[in-house]
């Protein structure tokens, strides 16, 4: 491999470029064997945005070896595929790769220890603001991120918000995707409630959604959304609730707390009406509770990743046959405002082999490794680069399709501020979830819940 970076300026369609892309695409098709998505990518993307002719590789240091810390698999097909990919990398570059796995909430403390100590894994696959907690300890990856963006149709808007550090003026992490969260519902009960069970016809506005929930509840099939300290489920639906009504916690200057606004009141008032359609006990729900309740048929509708569907396919086939997924509806904000667990890979500066590390990340994010990995995860993780929109996994099971555009539809959890230590703290303290829980259960009035959350946020953001 030649250690060069041959660049072509992007944009501007010429017939030659289009033909080149077409030829390259066809060649890729023939060579990689996972070509279905390539054709569709070419068909759906703006011409010239997919640039397979771009090449980049980093000069791997002699005698290099890599230690990688990543989150444990959500699906049993993930790790074997990832390991095969790592072995493939070793074969091509001679760099041995050692993989370590941790349950996803435990990655951050381990990475934190490594950051503090100055030794540990070379590459970490983490979540949310992790890289922004120690931005000066990370290897800048701007060249890699720019290359991937130009080659694969561009990053979705949320990706640079997470990957780029304003403080450092560089990309400090490479976005790798997000486990998505969608509404999970029982089709037969939705039909009984008088609504079309087809995901494409599922309620698209918050008003219609509330009507559906009320109808479900009146027929003895309540909904259920976590309001306890459920790190995944509570955060995703509570932030959606706030944002879809145009409310947000902090302003773009990352200091002003903008929570105390009429939009927040509207969001919580709506939430209260939604709460009346829920099963009792949601205020104590952690992440597994809604899975259990849904699989047992106690709730007709909840929000979750694709894990309920997997468990159903294995152990509850009647539920699997009767369930489907839909994207969150939209309120007055008029556009998708979702929160998913954004994951990115970053390289610690203490590594002795930064080029080998960057080369590994490049290899991981390129065709055909990345599509193969996403397909192996059976819909669990969604892509951050536009060109990967039509991978085989999204065409194999129509029930997985609503999870496909998770990264495209999401906002950063720090909205409207930027990811960093303060937003990390606000997220880990469950400020938003507690506010929603207080207001919806009636523990506090809407006004008081907002004031309490605002006070907590002020302490966090203004120190």
């Amino acid at each position, binding site marked *: 491999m030649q250690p060069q970076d041959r660049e072509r300026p992007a944009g501007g369609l010429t017939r030659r470029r289009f033909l080149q892309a077409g030829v390259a695409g066809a060649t890729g098709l023939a060579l990689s064997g996972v070509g279905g998505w390539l054709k569709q990518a070419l068909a759906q993307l703006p011409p010239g945005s997919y640039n397979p002719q771009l090449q980049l590789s980093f000069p791997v240091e002699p005698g290099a070896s890599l230690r990688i810390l990543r989150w444990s698999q959500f699906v049993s097909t993930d790790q074997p595929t990832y390991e095969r990919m790592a072995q493939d990398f070793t074969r091509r570059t001679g760099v041995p790769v050692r993989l370590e796995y941790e349950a996803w*909430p435990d990655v*951050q*403390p381990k990475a*934190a*220890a490594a*950051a*503090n100590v100055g030794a540990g894994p070379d590459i970490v696959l983490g979540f949310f603001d992790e890289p922004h*907690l*120690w931005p000066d*300890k990370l290897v800048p990856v701007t060249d890699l991120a720019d290359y991937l963006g130009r080659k694969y149709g561009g990053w979705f808007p949320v990706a640079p918000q997470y990957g780029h550090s304003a403080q450092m003026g560089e990309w400090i992490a490479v976005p790798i995707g997000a486990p998505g969260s969608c509404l999970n519902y029982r089709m037969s009960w939705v039909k009984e409630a008088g609504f079309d069970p087809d995901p494409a016809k599922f309620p698209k506005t918050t008003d219609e959604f509330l009507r559906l929930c009320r109808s479900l509840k009146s027929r003895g099939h309540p909904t259920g959304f976590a*309001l*306890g*300290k459920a790190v995944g489920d509570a955060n995703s639906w509570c932030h959606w609730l706030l944002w879809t009504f145009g409310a947000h916690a902090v302003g773009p200057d990352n200091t002003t707390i903008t929570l105390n606004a009429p939009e927040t009141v509207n969001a919580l008032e709506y939430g209260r009406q939604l709460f009346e359609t829920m*099963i*009792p*006990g*949601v*205020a*104590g*729900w*952690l992440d597994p*509770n809604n899975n*259990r*309740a849904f699989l*047992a048929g*106690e709730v007709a509708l909840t929000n979750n990743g694709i894990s309920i569907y997997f468990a159903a396919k294995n152990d509850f086939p009647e539920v699997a046959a009767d369930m489907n997924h839909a994207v969150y509806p939209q309120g007055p904000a008029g556009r998708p405002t979702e929160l998913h667990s954004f994951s990115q890979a970053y390289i610690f500066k203490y590594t002795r082999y930064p080029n080998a590390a960057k080369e590994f990340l490049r290899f991981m994010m390129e065709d055909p490794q990345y599509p193969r990995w996403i397909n192996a995860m059976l819909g669990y993780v969604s892509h951050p680069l536009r060109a990967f929109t039509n991978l085989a996994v999204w065409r194999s099971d129509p029930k997985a399709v609503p999870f496909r555009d998770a990264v495209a539809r999401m906002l950063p959890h720090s909205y409207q501020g930027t990811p960093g*230590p303060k937003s*990390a*703290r606000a997220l*880990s*303290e*469950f400020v938003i979830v*507690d506010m929603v*829980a*207080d207001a919806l*259960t009636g*523990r506090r009035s809407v006004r008081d819940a907002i004031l*309490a959350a605002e*006070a*907590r946020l002020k*302490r966090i953001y203004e120190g």
Partner: protein
Amino acid sequence: MPSVQVTTAARVVRPAGLVGRVLENHHALGVMMVTPALLILAIFLAYPFGLGVWLSFTNATIGQAGRFVGLGNFRYLLGDSVFRVVVLNTTLYAAAAVVCKLVLGFLLALLVNREFRGKRIVRAIMLLPWIVPTSLSALVFYWIYDPTFSIITWALRRIGLLHGFINYLGDPNLARASLIAANIWRGIPFFAIGLLAGLQTVSPTLYEAAAIDGAGTWQKFWFVTWPVLLPLTVVVTVFSTIMTVGDFQLIWIITHGGPANATHLFGTLAYQRAIQGGFIGEGAAISAFVLPVLVGAVMVSFHYLRRE
């Protein structure tokens, strides 16, 4: 006739070297014996403890070293509404749980102190809640307190005493009560076994003398058992208080400190802030607040232990 040569073994004389002299010296030997234990305590207890206290005076985060900020963390915490709730939670949790464990443990010890068939088996079974790893029993309690699938709710509904569902972990006060109940279940054996051991040391002649003087059951307890057992009871209570105030596993597994921080204790809040949030200095400060309680407890127990 061959001459028989008898040789006597030479008496081995140890050279009076430095090592020999040291080993024979009582004081030096004592120091040598204690040093390994001291080292272990110093490295694994004193150093982390000192580091923790130091960190509580800095604004260290998990990625950055931080500067000295004096009492800044403590001032911040005292003004933090969540922290104030946690102080109340911990006080309530420790007080309620320890008192109940003491009373129930004592009753259990008194019951089991008598002679009856199967005494040994009962005493062994009685220890089980304490022996079972907390994380496992906490997981079981997580199911027992599930709003939909609770066995208690199911049983009450079957009998007909209940028609709805009990929101064990969703309502703040009910959540506190549920966790206190779980802690009591787990902690009773500690009191029972400790007090049982103490009861066994009470001389039966004292009871006989009391009976001769016309004492009834309650008076026997109040005038004979209780005074003899008081020092042991205080020590056991103090240890239990220390462990209850520092409880982590039970809370974390069942509620993570929720709902709305109603079941957060010092330990769980410190973990959430220091490890999950990354604010190590503040987490250390939260833990440091427990110190006065523990120091007081230790001093009380020292007083009673010395009297023994």
